[in-house]
């Protein structure tokens, strides 16, 4: 089940303004790629674009050699995307927040185990508005344990996570990569993951003045 996400000459825009241009990137099993750069350089936009959620781009994005939009469903079945807005609904409990995403028959137990591994045991049935920001983030990140998708796109996964949590997550990312998965993430933390690559979007600042 090998896979490759490759990007050629990608440029993305937000609100009609080009954020970066000429990005080449290839992600395969075993990779951990950190997307770096200052605020507003297009990190989240890049992740949204890779996740097929944004169409304001030019350039090529291929999944296993085929155009991403032609193999969209196949791609989505192997993708886990946790965006800046994590999708945790405050009126729902931690368990309910995960249940609609993983409705399979055996998933109740898995959800419980995942929440326990995220140190949320005992908080499963509390509405998420009673949880702290870090705990809410952990609810979203429980999906790392529930999903069997090989490609993870994580936008600022360490937001509001404490020091122990960051270490545990680093371990999770490394383990995922060792098992043939791949991770593309944005973060302002300095990570100590083995074999991690960094892509700095500042190196791809569009050349000013070239109009289309």
């Amino acid at each position: 089940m090998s896979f490759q996400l490759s990007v050629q000459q990608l440029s993305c825009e937000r609100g009609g303004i080009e954020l970066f241009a000429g990005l080449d990137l290839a992600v395969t099993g075993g990779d951990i790629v950190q997307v770096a750069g200052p605020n507003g350089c297009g990190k989240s936009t890049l992740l949204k674009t890779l996740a097929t959620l944004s169409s304001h781009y030019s350039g090529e994005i291929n999944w296993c050699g085929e155009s991403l939009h032609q193999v969209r469903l196949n791609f989505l079945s192997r993708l886990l995307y946790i965006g800046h807005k994590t999708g945790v609904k405050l009126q729902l409990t931690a368990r309910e927040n995960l249940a609609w995403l993983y409705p399979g028959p055996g998933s109740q137990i898995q959800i419980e185990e995942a929440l326990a591994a995220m140190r949320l045991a005992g908080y499963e049935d509390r509405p998420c508005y009673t949880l702290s920001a870090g705990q809410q983030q952990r609810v979203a990140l429980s999906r790392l344990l529930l999903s069997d998708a090989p490609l993870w796109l994580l936008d600022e996964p360490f937001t509001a996570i404490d020091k122990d949590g960051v270490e545990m997550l680093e371990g999770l990312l490394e383990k995922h990569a060792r098992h043939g998965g791949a991770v593309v993430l944005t973060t302002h933390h300095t990570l100590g993951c083995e074999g991690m690559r960094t892509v700095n979007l500042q190196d791809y600042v569009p050349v000013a003045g070239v109009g289309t």
Partner: protein
Amino acid sequence: MGSPMWAVLKNFWHKLGSPKWFYQMSSRWLPWLSAITLGLLVWGLVWGLAYAPMDAKQGNSYRIIFLHVPASFLAMVGYYVMAIAGIVGLVWRMKMAMWVLRAAAPLGAVLTFISLFSGAIWGKPTWGTWWVWDARITSMLILLFLYLGVMALQNAFENEDSGNRASAVLTIVGMINIPIIYKSVEWWNTLHQGATIKFTEAPSMHMDMFKPLLLMIVTFYLLYALVLIMNLRCEILRHERRSQWVRELALNGKLL
């Protein structure tokens, strides 16, 4: 079929997507199109307003038909122009098609308004009232609402591209709905008999009246195309204002 005709069409289609090509080509057509349209407009209006025979029942007041009917016609056609542009824009991601949609929306809304307004002016001497809930008038009013909804949605987005795509989806939904709305309103009107007055239906229209009307309809098609192209050229300049070719045009004083 690999006929040369097909190749020419394909080439033309491809070129239509290029704002620069369209702008330059339309600069060449525009004087001709304007002259022909203006000529036909004068001809049609003089024929219709001065030379066509007077109506036996309505006298001279019927003559507003030469404005009212073509406007109603093109108001309707204009919505389909928008919807087709929307489909092309969404499916082929053609920027130019989205700009056509932007250019066509206010034009269609104005034509619909002209149709309603001239209908009201016509209604006063004919039925003694400005407004009647006749099936056609009501349908026209709903068409105006549809146009205004599309325009409101277009302008509500900060990101223009999103606004274009959203309004394209809305026009397509509207296009599917228009026949349903028209049939429903027609049915509604027959249900509430009494308020009905047959309108613009001219079973025994004299050929001397019909010919200038036909001419005015053709003229309105040309007028529609003319204004649409002019609107579209404004859209092109607005979007391409930073590009080299627009700058050169501006520097050489050839923008208009």
